[in-house]
Every structure is written in structure tokens, then in C-alpha cells.
């Protein structure tokens, strides 16, 4: 089969960042930062091109590495869903770099900037690899690369607190990757395959013959729990608040909007394409559903009880991850599509929240308590507005992305009916109330007059990149809310060509 020229793009998207990472490590800080910004912009363009071509042809394609075919070779698979997710992730990376630039210069020592850029390039490579790969072991290797890059991104500021957060992050993630690798080895031992399509067929055949149901089931549980550790699903989330809150703005935006989401996307791939037509997805899903519900509620409760501004936002991530798992655990295509949509909506809103929260703290002398940030919305108007929009989106104010995703989630639940529908709707209602309690309260504090307080800081220097990034993210949020349907349509088409 002859390849079209654009079918080489996925490989380019993996190899080019790896090369850039090597180049960055020998450049000086300024040049390395330019490489990293340029690379993430280029990644956005290439992903958009891929999306265009896959939608035009409305079929997915498989890129065979070195033309060694299945079952021995290594493959990349690109469809509408993969390129859409890839586009969303690289956009978030680009905006996070742009919007966090001032903070980055302040937090990361100049003689370390090139290493930060190198790690960010590695992250981009791992991101496209995990989005496109068709091979379970390749996915594992890039999971580890992501873990290493994320650890470096957290600890980049070099303060004691961030070092400790990075250590905790590493420990929990290593537990997760250990479980994932064990599950993978068991699955490989049972089926003899690592490529998703062959794996799926083999699992299906084994189950049809009634052989090894227990070990197969166990291997999928191990992989799910392993990924649960990595994307901070509720009982495994203990590393999250410190890691998110103590890192520099770009890093925390990336951690919550890209890194945890990419693991979830991988899990969706495993569920949909390697578990043999979701034969036992049913039973895992019941447990996941429970975890998701508890996670949504407890994440919000923890956020309400939190006395620190940035840790509050971090806690709310646990609850948002819960929404995504709620969609996945419905086990229907509509649920899956709603989960995907929520990945997009949450990424757009959370990136903005983390970036603007850092800016607001900078406008309050770096203070992190709610008393410190009083009136910060006046001191940093753009950041205040961005926070307000992001908070409204997460709460689910109509016309913003978070509202649309809650509607899709509720619809998926209603289509399903039964006890899950009732549990889901109740959870949505309770969680929305809780979200209002902490997000809008914070937004009000931001705009409370600070006339009785001495002006803490004269206005921040003008930061064009930050304002541009915030405007772009705000319009993405609005677009997802007002014109979510075309995006949803793309997701549905992607899912239909997924299996």
C-alpha cells in the first residue's frame, strides 16, 4: 500500500520532539525556550493537518514501522479521535507555555531553562506516541517517559517543597507503572500479542472458549488500577494536591490538563480495542463508577475545606477526573463520547484556572491564602477575568464548555436508565452545588474590594503572551459551550471508527 505524504506525520510528531529534546539540552536557556515554543506550535499545526486529512477521508489508517507487519511489527494508528485528542493536547501545551512564560522565567533558574525545555519536548514526544501507538508495550515505555518528564517539570523550581512533591509523585507513579507492567506481562503471556487489534481478537477468542477468564480479568484490573494511580482517580490521588500546587504555572497546567488526560485516553484505548469487545468491561465499570462518584464528591468537599488557593484548584481536579471516569464507566458509546468531550472542556478550563491563579498570586506578593488574594482581580484584570470564565465553565454555567459536557453526560445517563441514571444525575446535581460553593466563592473573593488593605503590589508588568493565551483559551471555552455539537460529532465519528 502506498502511503500518502501526510501519513508520515504521526511518526514525525514522535521523532521530531525527541530530536528537539536532545538539541535543547545543549542550547542556552533562551534558545531552548524558543525551540520548545516553536515545537509546540508546530505540533498544533501538524495535528490540525492530521485531523483535516482523517476527517476528509473519514477513515483511520495504520502506519507500520519499518514495514514489518503484524503480529511482529510496531504500529501507529491514526483516526479522527486520535488526531482530535492530539490537537487538543498540543494546543494546551502551547497555551501553557505561552501563558506561563513570565512565571517560568521567575521560577526556573536561567541555567536550568534548557533542561526544562528538553523535558517539555520529551513530554510532547510521549504525548503523540501514546495518542497514536497501537502497541501496548510501546505505550508502557512512553508512560515511563511521561513520568520522568513530569517529575522533572514538577521539581524544576528546585525548592524543597517541590522536590518533595516530585518525590511523592514519583513513588505513586512507580507503583502505578509497576501494576500496569505486571498486567501487561500477564496479558502478553496469555495471548501472545501486544498490538491492540490482535490482542482484542485473542482475548475474545479465549473468553469464548472459556479459558483463563480469571487471569484475563486480573490483568485488566491491574492495568486499570495502574493507570488510576497515574491519573489520580479517587482512591489513588494522594500525590496530586502537592504536586499541582507547588509546581510552576506551566507545569501544573500541563500536569492536570495533559498528562493525566493522556493516561485516560490510553485506558479508553485499552478498554475499547484490547479487551475483546468489552466482554468484562461490565464488571470493572461498576467498580469504576463507584470510584468516580466518590471521587467527584470527595474532591469537591476537599476543595471546599482547603485553605490554600492553588491547592483548592488542585483538589477540584480530582473531582473533574471523576467526571471523566463516570462517562467511561457508563459503558455506552454516548458515555464514552461525553467523557471525551469532558476531557476537552476540562483541559480548556483547567489550563486557564492554573495559569490565571498563578498570575493572581503573583499580584498578591505570592501569597496563597484566601486573605492574600482578596481583590487580586483588580490588581490583575486579565487573570481575574480568565479565572472567572474558567470557574464558571467548571461549575457549568450555560454557554461554556463545562455546561455542554455536563449536558452530554446527563444525556448519556438518561439513555442508559436504571440505577446508574439516578446515581449519575444525583451526583451531577450535588457536585454542581459543591462546585458553586468553592469556585464562585473564590471568584467573589477575587473581586472583593481591598480598599481597607494597603496596596500590596503596584500593578504587574504588562504580559502580552499571557493575555493572548487567556483570550484564546476563553474563546475555546466559549466555542465548546456554544458550538459543542460539531466537536461532539467529530468525537462520535472517531469512536465509530475506533473499534
Amino acid at each position, binding site marked *: 500500500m502506498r502511503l500518502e505524504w501526510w501519513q508520515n506525520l504521526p511518526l514525525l510528531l514522535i521523532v521530531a520532539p525527541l530530536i528537539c529534546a536532545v538539541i535543547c539540552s545543549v542550547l542556552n536557556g533562551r534558545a531552548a525556550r524558543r525551540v520548545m515554543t516553536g515545537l509546540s506550535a508546530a505540533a498544533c499545526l501538524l495535528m490540525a493537518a492530521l485531523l483535516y486529512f482523517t476527517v476528509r477521508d473519514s477513515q483511520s489508517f495504520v502506519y507500520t514501522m519499518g514495514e514489518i507487519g503484524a503480529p*511482529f511489527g510496531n504500529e501507529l494508528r491514526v483516526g479522527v479521535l486520535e488526531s482530535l485528542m492530539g490537537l487538543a493536547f498540543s494546543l494546551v501545551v502551547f497555551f501553557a507555555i505561552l501563558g506561563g512564560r513570565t512565571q517560568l522565567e521567575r521560577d526556573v533558574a536561567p541555567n536550568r531553562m534548557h533542561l526544562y525545555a528538553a523535558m517539555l519536548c520529551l513530554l510532547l514526544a510521549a504525548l503523540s506516541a501514546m495518542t497514536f501507538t497501537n502497541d501496548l*508495550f510501546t505505550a508502557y*515505555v512512553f508512560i*515511563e517517559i511521561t*513520568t*520522568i518528564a513530569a*517529575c*522533572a517539570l514538577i*521539581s524544576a523550581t528546585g525548592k*524543597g*517543597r517541590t*522536590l*518533595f512533591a*516530585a*518525590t*511523592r509523585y*514519583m*513513588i505513586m507513579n*512507580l*507503583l502505578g507503572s*509497576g*501494576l500496569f*507492567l*505486571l498486567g501487561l*506481562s*500477564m496479558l*502478553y*503471556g496469555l495471548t501472545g500479542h*501486544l498490538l491492540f487489534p490482535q490482542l482484542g481478537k485473542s482475548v475474545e477468542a479465549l473468553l469464548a472458549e472459556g479459558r483463563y477468564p480469571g487471569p484475563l480479568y486480573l490483568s485488566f484490573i491491574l492495568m486499570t488500577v495502574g493507570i488510576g494511580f497515574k491519573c489520580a482517580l479517587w482512591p489513588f490521588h494522594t500525590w496530586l494536591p502537592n504536586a499541582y500546587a507547588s509546581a510552576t504555572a506551566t507545569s501544573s497546567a500541563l500536569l492536570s490538563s495533559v498528562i493525566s488526560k493522556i493516561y485516560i485516553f490510553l485506558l479508553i484505548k485499552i478498554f475499547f480495542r484490547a479487551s475483546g469487545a468489552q466482554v468484562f468491561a461490565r464488571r470493572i465499570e461498576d467498580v469504576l463508577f463507584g470510584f468516580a462518584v466518590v471521587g467527584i464528591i470527595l474532591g469537591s468537599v476537599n476543595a471546599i475545606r482547603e485553605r490554600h488557593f492553588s491547592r483548592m484548584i488542585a483538589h477540584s481536579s480530582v473531582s473533574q477526573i471523576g467526571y471523566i471516569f463516570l462517562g467511561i464507566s457508563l459503558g455506552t458509546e454516548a458515555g464514552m463520547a461525553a467523557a471525551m468531550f469532558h476531557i476537552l472542556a476540562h483541559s480548556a478550563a483547567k489550563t486557564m484556572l492554573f495559569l490565571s491563579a498563578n498570575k493572581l498570586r503573583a499580584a498578591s506578593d505570592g501569597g496563597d491564602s484566601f486573605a492574600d488574594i482578596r481583590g487580586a482581580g483588580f490588581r490583575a484584570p486579565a487573570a481575574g477575568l480568565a479565572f472567572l470564565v474558567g470557574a464558571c465553565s467548571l461549575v457549568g454555567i450555560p454557554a461554556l464548555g463545562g455546561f455542554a459536557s455536563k449536558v452530554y453526560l446527563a444525556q448519556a445517563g438518561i439513555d442508559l436508565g436504571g440505577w446508574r441514571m439516578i446515581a449519575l444525575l444525583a451526583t451531577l446535581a450535588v457536585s454542581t452545588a459543591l462546585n458553586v460553593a468553592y469556585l464562585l466563592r473564590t471568584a467573589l473573593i477575587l473581586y472583593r474590594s481591598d480598599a481597607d488593605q494597603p496596596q500590596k503590589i503596584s500593578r504587574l508588568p504588562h504580559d502580552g503572551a499571557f493575555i493572548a493565551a487567556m483570550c484564546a483559551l476563553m474563546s475555546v471555552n466559549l466555542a465548546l459551550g456554544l458550538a459543542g455539537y460539531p466537536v461532539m460529532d467529530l468525537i462520535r465519528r472517531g469512536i465509530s471508527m475506533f473499534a
Partner: protein
Amino acid sequence: MLQSVMEHLDELTAMALFGIGFSLLLLNRNMIKKIIGFSMMDSGIYLFLASYGYIESRLAPIYTDNMTDPGAYVNPLPAGLVLTGIVVAVSVTAIMLGLTVRLYQRYHTLDIEEIAEQIRKEGK
């Protein structure tokens, strides 16, 4: 019973190693012991993979002149996976040790609870 234990000795050892390593990494307070636990956990998995790949009386998958029958060799893939896994584990161990050194320089202890305590005091 004993028969089946003897038959699956590799797997059982591997699982025991994994369990010991996992609980060390999760529960031990000492950073160095955590890292040792991580190494044991991964070694357990590699043993598990390697024991799949080994079939008695078959050759290592290296092509020598007059042996063209693929049935004479073992499957090379598990060995490849183990090799890749070892590379990953080495780099992760290096990062963990680096972090431990930095934490020790700052807080003069390897005990993770104690470090957490000191950070809590710092914050106030």
C-alpha cells in the same frame, strides 16, 4: 499440590518478589529502601516475563547456519521486552536516587515522614 508449586516456581517467585517490592515502595518510610523496593518489584516482573520466554531444550533465538526450523528457537520477544524494561527501570532509579540526594542535602534525613513534617513547619 507440591507438584503444581514446583511447576510454577518461577511465577510464584516472581509474584513474591513483586509483592515484597510493592509493599516496600508503598509503606517503607526510608527513601533508599523504597528505591530498593522499586528495583525488586520490577525484577519480579522481569523474572515473570523471562520465564514465559524460556522453553526447555530450545535454543536462544540467534540464527546459526543449518537450523532453519523456527521451532528450534524460543520466542525472542519476551527477552526484548525485559531488556527494554531494564533500561526504563535504570533511568527511573537514577532519577529517584537524584531526588533522594537533593532531599537529603536539604533536610538531612532519608525518612519521608520526617521530611513532610519539616516542610509543614517551614510552611507556617
